[in-house]
């Protein structure tokens, strides 16, 4: 559950973390008008998307005047922004944040996460900025970590070369409070900027809230980014199915995340192109599975359905085949199915597939099913 930049900053400022003054706009005209409410000598216009890598992709632009703000906002709004962290089609920019540009005297990076023992842990580096992630990946030693409970944050930051470490430690303390109170799984401030005055300010911020803890934080529900998922993916979620759309032509129906990942790996190795990743959660009913399959059938790119199920202790084979049968009974378009079923209730599921007269080819191994699906997708015989 990722919060967009401005919502992250709103939340942090409630806990005493300093952020530059800013306003969010949904149209270019609004962006220009809002400049009047922001005290600044220079503005910065920032695309509000979930993915990182924005700065290098043209999603952050400086503007000297309100009319320049308008034209930068115009270039971003309603258009996809492709960054290193999005897929090839990018993420559509629906909101921009107009902010007072600050004079940065020094920039740093901090993040708070839960470590493997669920202890809140500070990650920090005295150098931050747009290239930080790339640099840190190449040189992991750039980032130092400290368990927050019972440790001296100021001395730690001082040791890393932070200027005015006392003020930076105070900011970390406030951020830590926000992290705990809102059950965050990640709080990242990059850059954390020191102004000429010595004050530390969160120039960019990213927050991820634990989705499993949302029941305790109904007030955060409106803050969570709703455009991180496509409508198809959201419908799937509502039906207990994790679905990620891809751009191939083989619709994949699989139970379990591990088996789903394994299936897509094998499809790609065999020269095929999956149309999606699917993980039917153990809690899904056959009606919900039918909805998931319908989402694939509605996509005209899908030429074939690969059904790969290992009936387990919680999702048995026939629950899935029943869902497929429901979906096919209602669908206008009935692409061929290649099925590989194993595990709990496999015999019953096979019988169901043939009795419901589904256009199915049954295979015994995953490899055989994958090869068959790829060959049909490429125009081979069913």
């Amino acid at each position, binding site marked *: 559950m990722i919060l967009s930049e401005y919502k992250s900053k709103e939340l942090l400022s409630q806990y005493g973390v300093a952020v530059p003054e800013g306003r969010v706009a949904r149209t270019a005209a609004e962006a220009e008008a809002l400049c009047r409410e922001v005290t600044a000598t220079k503005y910065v216009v920032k695309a509000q998307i979930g993915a990182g890598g924005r700065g290098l992709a043209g999603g952050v632009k400086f503007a000297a005047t309100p009319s320049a703000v308008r034209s930068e906002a115009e270039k971003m709004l309603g258009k996809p922004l492709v960054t290193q*962290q999005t897929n090839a089609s990018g993420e559509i920019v629906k909101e921009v944040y107009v902010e007072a540009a600050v004079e940065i005297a020094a920039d740093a990076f901090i993040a708070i996460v839960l470590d493997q023992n669920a*202890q809140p842990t500070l990650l920090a580096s005295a150098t931050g900025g747009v290239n930080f992630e790339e640099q840190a990946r190449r040189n992991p030693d750039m980032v130092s970590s400290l368990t927050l409970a019972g440790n001296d944050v100021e001395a730690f930051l001082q040791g890393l070369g932070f200027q005015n470490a006392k003020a930076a430690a105070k900011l970390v303390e406030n951020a830590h409070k926000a992290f705990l109170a809102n059950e965050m799984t990640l709080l990242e401030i990059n850059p954390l900027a020191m102004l000429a005055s010595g004050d530390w300010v969160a120039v960019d911020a990213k927050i991820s809230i634990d989705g499993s803890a949302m029941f305790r934080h109904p007030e955060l529900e409106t803050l969570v980014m709703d455009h991180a998922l496509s409508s198809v993916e959201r419908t799937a979620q509502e039906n207990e199915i994790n679905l990620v759309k891809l751009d191939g032509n083989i619709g994949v129906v699989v139970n379990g*995340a591990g088996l789903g990942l394994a299936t897509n790996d094998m499809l790609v190795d065999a020269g095929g192109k999956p149309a999606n990743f699917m993980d039917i959660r153990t809690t899904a009913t056959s009606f919900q599975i039918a909805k998931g399959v319908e989402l694939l059938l509605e996509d005209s790119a899908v030429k074939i359905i690969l059904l790969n199920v290992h009936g387990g202790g919680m999702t048995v084979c026939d629950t899935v085949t029943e869902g497929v049968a429901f979906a096919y009974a209602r669908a206008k378009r009935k692409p061929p199915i290649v099925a590989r079923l194993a595990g709990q209730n496999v015999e019953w599921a096979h019988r169901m597939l043939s009795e419901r007269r589904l256009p199915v080819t049954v295979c015994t191994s995953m490899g055989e099913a994958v090869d068959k699906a790829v060959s049909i997708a490429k125009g081979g015989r069913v």
Partner: protein
Amino acid sequence: MAILIDETTKVMVHGMTGRSGTFYTDLAMRYGSNYVAGVRPGKGGTKHLGLPVFDTAAEAVAQTGANASLIMVPAHHAAEAMIDAITAMVGVIVCVTERVPQHDMTQVMAALEGSDSVLIGPNSQGILTPGGCKIGVMPTRDARPGVVGIASRSASLTSEILAQTSVAGLGQSTTVGVGGDAIHGIGFVECLKRFREDDQTKVVVLIGEIGGREEEDAAAYLTTLDYGKPVIALVVGREAPKEKRMGHAGTLSIFGSETAQDKTDLLRKAGVIIAKNADDVVPCVTKAL
């Protein structure tokens, strides 16, 4: 032999009186596992499925000698139940519950520190010693006692690989689902250590996936010693959609690599045999034996 649990293990169930608790306790008992008690605060003194129900794990231990617990309670009570079991010094604690809030794990992990309890999960399908004891929600129809030890991050792939090893006539010593959550109890390294000491286990299969540090930690451990038994690993998610990956600091290496390739490279360097895909695991095992 097997690891962690066998036919002598006495199991209590936190949340036995609930719908899932009832269903999976019944299945496990039918499989022949030795279930001795249920725990449900407020229902102490009653009976369910013919077993006594207690308010706390400590009472269940005192009255029945239970030394393992299956936790199947709603997510917001899971931490409480895990801590109840740890405080009662239960040896093996299996938490099946999904979506346990991560911040709730802070206290659980602190309670675990310095205790002798082994926590499996949360969000684990459980642990199975075929023919001996089942603590979890996995299917058992394809399980056979045998020589393959399995430690896995994926329930569905465990069922798949387990079935394949049975068809090949190898069977399993014990299968452990370490759980799908970022913060969890037992990991690959602890499983490897126990499988190494176990006479029944002749070969170990690790089923990994993208994200987390399990594979990296296993590789680091295996480079420190001559393990003495073949280890085969399958790491899935090479072609995972980008959206499945974390967008920002999650990609920093202290959280583990974001690619399956990095993980398999490290494991291969540590002497692990890498299975190309899910169909290649059993051929690798057979060849290694």
